[in-house]
């Protein structure tokens, strides 16, 4: 017995689960946030007034908001740059190892299993100005480490915590990418007398560009949106507002401040920014990538 599905409906039917999930978890909340951004509401939802663009106006007339944009940019690009370069270096090194390759690789992937908040707490303990081993060691070297007071040091701390975790993920992709680089090309180059340095920059690195591009996108998105836990566990945005990224501000205004309208307006701005970022990445950067 054969079952017949009219072909016109089948594709939609197969897509349905994905569409339902997208609708429930992405489109619906996004629409809610969009709507909320135009209202002023008390936390309990007992009263609600339409205030038009007031939430946006107060947002963009607040110098602190511009500061959080700057903080976000510094933070995200530092995390992406450090995460990519360290992971690439480690991958190149691990790729060359002959004995115990698996052990090295497994160890390097391990940190990825650590939850962001935990990673934050671990680094926070290591760098605690009065008890942390790293902080004491730095003091011994003459660096007065105090991220409770020094905004730049606080930024370094959150960048380290956020990057550390991401290195494993990047490493995994770079390693796979490296293994896909044809050996024959490298051998041919070495026969022609190219140094390992030259071989890497002229052959391996360009051939890795699809992986690098993919990781750049993923890392920037990670730094923009997924690092809330790290920041909350280490600095809570301080000292001052020196580590309060835009996502952290959405949280602190919405969940601590219970200012739902203002927080929703910030989410809308973020959604807009992600849209722009994605377009830029795929239109301008991807063109330069050789697949």
């Amino acid at each position, binding site marked *: 017995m054969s079952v017949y599905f009219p072909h016109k409906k089948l594709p939609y039917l197969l897509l349905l689960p994905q569409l339902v999930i997208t609708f429930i978890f992405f489109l619906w909340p996004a629409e809610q946030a969009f709507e909320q951004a135009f209202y002023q509401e008390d936390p309990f939802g*007992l009263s609600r007034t339409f205030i038009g663009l007031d939430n946006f106006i107060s947002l963009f007339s607040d110098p602190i908001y511009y500061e959080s944009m700057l903080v976000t940019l510094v933070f995200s690009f530092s995390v992406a740059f450090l995460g990519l370069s360290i992971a690439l270096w480690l991958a190149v090194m691990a790729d060359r190892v002959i004995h115990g390759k698996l052990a090295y690789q497994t160890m390097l992937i391990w940190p990825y299993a650590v939850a962001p908040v935990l990673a934050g707490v671990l680094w926070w303990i290591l760098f605690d100005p009065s008890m942390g081993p790293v902080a004491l060691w730095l003091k011994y070297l003459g660096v007065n480490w105090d991220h409770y007071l020094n905004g730049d040091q606080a930024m370094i701390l959150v960048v380290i915590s956020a990057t550390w975790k991401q290195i494993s993920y990047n490493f995994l992709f770079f390693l796979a990418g490296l293994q896909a680089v044809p050996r024959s090309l490298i051998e041919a180059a070495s026969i022609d007398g190219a140094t390992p340095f030259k071989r890497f920059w002229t052959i391996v690195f360009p051939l890795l560009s699809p992986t690098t591009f993919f990781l750049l996108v993923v890392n920037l998105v990670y730094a923009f949106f997924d690092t809330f836990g790290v920041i909350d566990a280490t600095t809570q945005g301080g000292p001052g507002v020196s580590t309060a990224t835009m996502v952290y501000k959405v949280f602190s205004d919405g969940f601590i401040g219970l200012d739902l309208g203002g927080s929703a307006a910030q989410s809308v701005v973020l959604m807009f920014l992600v849209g722009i970022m994605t377009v830029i990445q795929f239109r301008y950067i991807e063109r330069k990538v050789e697949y």
Partner: protein
Amino acid sequence: MQSFKLASVVIGMSIASVSFAATEVEWWHAMGGANGEKVNEIAQAFNESQGAYTVKPVYKGNYTETMTSAIAAFRAKKQPAIVQVFEVGTASMMAAKGAIYPVYELMSDFGQPFKASDYLSSVTGYYSDVDGNILSMPFNSSTPVLFYNKELFAKAGISSAPTTWEQMETVSEKLLKNGVSCGFTTSWQSWIQLENFSARHDVPFATEENGFGGMNTEFAFNGPTQVAHIQKMSEWQKSGVFSYAGRRSDSAPKFYSQECAMYMGSSAGYAGMKRNTSFDFGVSQLPYWESKIEKPNNTIIGGASLWVLKGHSEEEYRGVASFLSFLSRADVQADWHQFSGYLPITHAAYGLTKGQGYYEKNLGTETGVIQMTSTTPTANSKGLRLGNFVQIRDIINESLEGVWSGQTTAQEALDSAVKRGNALLRKFEKAN
């Protein structure tokens, strides 16, 4: 078909069991660790004392998380009957008239005895409306005190704890000369160095009686008394008399490690202090500027109270009322006070603890109570009732951190915090 039958049996059974079982009252709280276990113990004691109601305590994370989840639950109509809300959330709860069931109303509706005069006035003052009606049940209240390292004091030849800020300076300098690397540190800087500081020196923290008089309140903590104090502290930060180490209680390790000889923190931190210190420490009242006030006011409280939320059945509220009555019994309160280090809420519990000789056996545990009850609260020391205050405290944190790091002066920082805080107060006024 089989599974359908099974399902209907299960549903039938669960419906049946609901009608037999005691009425369940959910209580969301923010007490972790040892205090959380004590909360479970208290609920269990109540459940065993009668058969009609079962109180079910649920731990919901820290204060902010507990309050936010209760609010989210309310919006989804799944709110608990009782929720513990910290003192700075008080204004938000009070403003939500459609969401809360005032405790004084609940108690009289269900015939439970409830007299405001049984409670310490500096505690209930924080949770009462303008007519003196108690809106939420005080549960765990604490007040800031000064902890000092007796051994470091002895080494430096200092015999007693400083009582004034003038002495704080001379004592700290003496300590520094004797090899201690920092005089004092503080936790919760806004709570201790501005809110309690203002109360103690009888200057307003905000207009309209710190917000008790109306929602049109504006901040006033950039007055000359506060500015002078913060300016002095920033000088001390440079000289080592004071050392800043974080927004909440992050500075406690500096005291534990004997880096700082004095620490200002919550009186409820006593048990933790005992566990973490290897030296003899003393507890003393918060200092005051002799040059600014002759006799300091009482300090104000921190901690949390229990709010009853609307939307439950009459039977549940009967259970809530009887549970709150149980909670304020002298023996229950005294036990909670002695175990946790929070203040006794009722005069009876205070008397009972005294009678048991607890304070003589645990020197320093009474300091907070004495400091709270020594004077009658004035308009400036009743407490604070300010909307959006959780977030405003963060603004104050940000500004003070600018002062400690030497980027701004005290006047600039407090002016800007007042300005930013006022904007949030106006937002709160508009939303409610």
